[in-house]
């Protein structure tokens, strides 16, 4: 399989907008405190959340154009533009570029709104704009339109395996010569439906946890995008994607045997405190950063961004987990540690005992 150079990166999430604010949050060990109001059957409540502000999109898109876009699309556009800007490729790009967008939930708010608008007697008044924006590939289409990019455009939705799948496809496209560059990223947005689910967990604990134990997941949303080119032809500003592997876990997944650190996508939603130790053997140092960006299906895109920053800085950032129980379970290191082999892995366990693993290295 071909290797890909990471030449640009764009991130927006609860930590703020841009690579420098992500770095800042990693160094401080926290993102700014936020809460979200959730409507429940027992009235409104507030919960901790890591939500993303898309106001910086004004740098790239006119106010008139922005009005057409829902929050989900704005997240995708902002992440994509930031990455291209970072790679120096927003205005012009050599050769042909493909766009791949990964999402776990898709444009959830729009879908919920459109579905609600069709209830009872209002069936004839569904909004065409809401419907259009509820289609999963709308955000990637807007990216292509604004960038005037006619290369292949793909949207994939494989829940928590979406990011690994999108990256695998990007490597294949580069290997095939289908494109010269790929803009690939993950996007998920918060909506009240998800907040309601998270709040329900508070009475149950995270899935599989002891009944009544507090839920550990922190609501998250955001976008993380990357500009990839063939390694060898281009130097990677943020290192190289050496490989992407995924599949069903064969009983127990042998972790990487090179002793290099592994960033786990443990976000508190899917019984991760039990599942990771039970299903994976890891010999190297472990890092968890879901406390910086929150719990969302495309969290692995943020882990990849953090891995890339760690590699270029030569240090593994101190872990920022959603709770001390994570630190104890995984033995997470608090101080930053030097990265000796110059290689990092990002591992995400999927919902049905499948996995996606990314391996990054310095150039």
């Amino acid at each position, binding site marked *: 399989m071909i290797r890909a150079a990471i030449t640009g990166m764009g991130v927006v999430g609860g930590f703020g907008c841009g690579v420098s604010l992500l770095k800042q949050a990693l160094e401080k060990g926290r993102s700014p405190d936020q809460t979200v109001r959730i409507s429940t059957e*027992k009235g409104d409540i507030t919960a901790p959340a890591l939500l993303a502000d898309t106001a910086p999109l004004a740098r790239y898109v006119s106010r008139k154009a922005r009005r057409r876009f829902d929050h989900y699309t704005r997240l995708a556009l902002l992440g994509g533009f930031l990455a291209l800007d970072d790679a120096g490729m927003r205005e012009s790009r050599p050769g042909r570029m493909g766009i791949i967008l990964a999402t776990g939930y898709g444009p959830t708010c729009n879908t919920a709104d459109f579905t609600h608008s069709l209830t009872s007697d209002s069936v004839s008044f569904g909004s065409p704009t809401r419907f259009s924006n509820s289609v*999963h590939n*709308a955000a990637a289409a807007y990216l292509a339109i604004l960038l005037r990019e006619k290369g292949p455009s793909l949207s994939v939705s*494989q829940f928590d395996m979406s990011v690994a799948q999108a990256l695998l496809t990007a490597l294949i496209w580069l290997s095939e010569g289908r494109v010269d560059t790929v803009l690939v990223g993950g996007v998920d947005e918060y909506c009240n*439906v998800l907040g309601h689910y998270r709040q329900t967990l508070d009475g149950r604990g995270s899935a599989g946890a002891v009944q009544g134990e507090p839920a550990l997941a922190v609501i998250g949303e955001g976008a993380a995008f990357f500009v990839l080119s063939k390694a060898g032809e281009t130097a990677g500003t943020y290192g190289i994607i050496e490989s992407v592997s995924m599949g069903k876990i064969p009983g127990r997944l042998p972790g990487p045997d090179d002793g290099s650190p592994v960033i786990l996508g443990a976000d508190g939603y899917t019984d991760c405190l039990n599942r990771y130790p039970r299903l994976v053997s890891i010999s190297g140092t472990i890092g968890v950063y879901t406390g910086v960006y929150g719990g969302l299906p495309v969290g692995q895109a943020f882990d990849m961004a953090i891995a890339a920053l760690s590699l270029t800085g030569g240090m593994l950032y101190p872990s920022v987990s959603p709770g001390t129980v994570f630190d104890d379970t995984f033995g997470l290191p608090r101080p930053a540690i030097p990265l000796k082999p110059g290689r990092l892995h990002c591992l995400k366990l999927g919902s049905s005992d499948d996995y996606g693993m990314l391996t990054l290295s310095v150039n």
Partner: protein
Amino acid sequence: MTPRLPVAVTGMGCICHAGATLNTSMQTLYRGVRNPGPPAVFKCPLEDLSPVFEVPQTFLPVDIRRRNDIPWLFKLVLAAASEAIRHAGRTIRDLRDLRVGVCLGTNVGTAMNNETYYRNCPESGESFVSPRERFLQSNPTAALVREWHLSGPTLTVVTACSAGTDAIGLAAGWIREGICDLVIAGGADAMYQVTYHGFRSLMIMDTDPCRPFDRRRKGMNLGEGAAVMVLESPELTGIRPPRVQGSILGYGASADAYHLTSPDPTGAGLELAIDDALRESGVSFQEVAFINAHGTGTDDNDRIESQVLARRLPGIPFFSTKGYTGHTLGAAGAMEAVFSMACLKNRKIPACLGYEEPDPMLPSRPVRENRSIRGRIALSESLAFGGNNAVLIIGDGADQ
């Protein structure tokens, strides 16, 4: 992009309004019949409804029909995938010893997996179903992997109406890159009131049975179904008696980069996808025996597609099968790919059902009657919401 090796297709399956299997669907296509009706899966108080092409329950194999632990969409997938595996001369047990990937296109399989929850939340605290559970129940790829205990990579493509075409093209890449021994690839979508009313809100649905490329066309009709191909690596086809049904020669994809809901009037994006697919397959357009067009029956789509075909693929007979199946969205591209491969084997293409009166504004016209064909290569194309274009070049398997 340089020409790539053909990828063998060893089995196909299809379930749609036209038939319970690929064979029965092809018989319906050649007979030129259809019988769409008002939506049965949901009640609608409105008048002037667009007819739909639903799949009758009786089309499902009894063992699948009787199951009450899986949703309707997955029943369709299971029916098509089971047929394809049988057609390939394999058993589900065989698959467990191989690196088997699943790559399916869908729309409602992802967007609508939360429908019940959306409706009830937050009014009822009793509606608790976790997103993970909803995903596992409704995502056709995840459900098939779980049902058959498969081990390889999985991908759910959500590029709207081109998703089935994209899924097969991407799956061919998995085989060529050595990621899988075998891939189950295709598409599936089911009738849902949300999509129905969504398209209704866009005012692109015909209240009569659709008429692709016809002067009087007024829009599309929705359909449902699933279609699946089994793609195998050369190593796998080499170690057992050949059972090749055809091959995927090339795949091209592009974006119009023009508008969310209207196709680029120049057709430049579609041409790019056609050129890429031909380049990857290493064949010239003169070798293409026929084209299975997207042909939804909407004014814009058919006009632009007709212009591109006249310009880029002149003189090649074409048709749309949406007059037999309705527009099955994420399944459409896969369905049209299996129909195309079956046409190559049968050496016969069906009439473009619904097309009667030529439109003077369209520079190319579809076939009005069944027609024999001689060539060994077909082109199947999909144009999607969001400006996605995807094209497959399909061979009859003589290259294997």
